[in-house]
């Protein structure tokens, strides 16, 4: 014990206990290049998508201080806890701005045939 104390007077180990691991208080969730990517920049499509995409309000809008900004937290909390999706007064959502999954699908020829034949073409 004494020997160790005497030794440490002259040497400060580089390995040190840094304390319990905690999630940093401030996190930047805006997209950056992946550390293992050979390219120095992200394709412009990342920013473009976020400009037009809507998930609990526009993704590309003002960066929120909460952890839901840029979709980092999608699905991990209930929708109600994320707040209202109602647009502010004077603002309206256009159905055409919704993701493709909310839009009507075009009828396929097979479906048209099924309707016209009273379902006979299904069998």
């Amino acid at each position, binding site marked *: 014990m004494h020997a160790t104390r005497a030794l440490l007077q002259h040497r400060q180990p*580089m*390995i040190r206990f840094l304390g319990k691991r905690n999630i940093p208080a401030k996190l930047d969730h805006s997209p950056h290049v992946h550390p293992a990517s050979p390219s120095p920049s992200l394709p412009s*499509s990342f920013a473009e998508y976020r400009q037009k995409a809507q998930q609990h309000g526009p993704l590309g809008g003002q960066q929120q201080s909460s952890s839901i900004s840029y979709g980092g937290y999608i699905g991990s909390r209930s929708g109600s806890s994320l707040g209202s999706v109602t647009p502010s007064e004077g603002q309206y959502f256009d159905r055409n701005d919704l993701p493709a999954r909310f839009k009507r699908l075009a009828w*396929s020829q097979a479906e048209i045939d099924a309707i016209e034949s009273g379902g006979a073409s299904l069998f």
Partner: protein
Amino acid sequence: MLSRALPRATTRQLSRPVNSSVSRPTFYTAERARRWYATEAEEKDLVIIGGGVAGYVAAIKAGQAGLSVSCIEKRGSLGGTCLNVGCIPSKSLLNNSHLYHQILHDTKNRGIEVGDVKLNLTQMMKAKETSVSGLTKGIEFLFKKNNVEYIKGTGAFADEHTVKVNLTEGGETSVRGKNILIATGSEATPFPGLTIDEEKVITSTGAIALKEVPKKMTVIGGGIIGLEMASVWSRLGSEVTVVEYLGQIGGPGMDAEIAKMSQKILTKQGIKFKLNTKVTSGDAGSDGVKISTEAAKGGKEETLDADVVLVAIGRRPYTAGLGIENIGIETDDKGRLVIDQEFRTKVPHIRVIGDCTFGPMLAHKAEEEAVAAIEFITKNYGHVNYNAIPSVMYTHPEVAWVGQNEQELKAQGIKYNVGSFPFSANSRAKTNLDTEGLVKFLADKETDRILGIHIVGPNAGEMIAEGVLALEYGASCEDVARTSHAHPTLAEAFKEAAMATYGKAIHY
């Protein structure tokens, strides 16, 4: 508001019962759910495409975090390339072929007299299959334990939230996810001009399932996979020649001194090497495969005859049939899916991990990413240190390294100290009569901080874990050297190499 704006689909009854024996047209079963607005199907918190190491680890981690998870896998068994046709079966063959080789050639001087030693390749393959099936079934059990839904089939994106699955047992289904994780892995890169039949012209998949020991085997590519398979078949009696385009074996990550040393050891074991050699063409006929080669810089031509040719020139991301064109996410020039620092594609709820994106194609790297990706979803924070990912080659002796090698440090102009310790001076290696190899440390000249650790020697793959920990913690060589290591162990060589970097080793 949206629920009011968009009419919900109501469940419609069929006007007449459908005879279940009649096969239904595709759109009837799959498109029906999508015909109306997408509010009908249950939405999972996470849908994972791929049940390999990346996918299954993510699925278990997500299940543990309480997310509702579906994992889609088309192979019919979980674990991906690693468990089914990669790391695990090859380790089984490497271990058992090493035992066989040792019993044949290395028993008399140990005082063990053995009788007639014979190879039973069928049984060796069965032992491999037992290991594989035990592990893959273990993952299925863990899926059940953690409430992960396992869907056997081929998944493809229908839209940004929906994955359509062609079920292995027939029929289709689709799953919707708030988050989607792509973990589709990689496949062996084919060699242009050679058709892979997995019998005469094989990839690593065929190399772990040969029905007899080939008399002559040529391995195209002197990387880790090529050398491990070369070792297996050489030990079992094949005459193996490795053709490598570069001037060193082990791939570009391996330290040049270590690569040279392991090449020397493997040559002594009977493997022939042709470095700086380019394969120009190949011709598979009924009597074997002919490979034409020439010097990489042009010139000297040669033809190599073999019964079996192993193509081990690397792996490429596997995203065929995934339907990424349906959602417009990008790949780079090497086919890797482009992601940001949180594994997100341009569509933020679709993430990518493992071999099909950036970074080394290693199972343990994929595992780290899987855990981090789930933590990004559940806690909004994850961490992978790409500078501290070890590489291991499971030949005998094993080769393992972490961090930077001498070539890389020189190229960056970093001043460094080198310290090494040979296993021939280690007591445990001596008692094991297994003394080939060394441990080598590279440390910053000024601060003594460890920059890279390179090992060739017995148990290197296990020993490197200490090096990874030291690198992750930002340790100095002195930190390692002043840590007590049990005696007599191979790990003492590790400690003494650290000592040799800032001072002098005791036993050398």
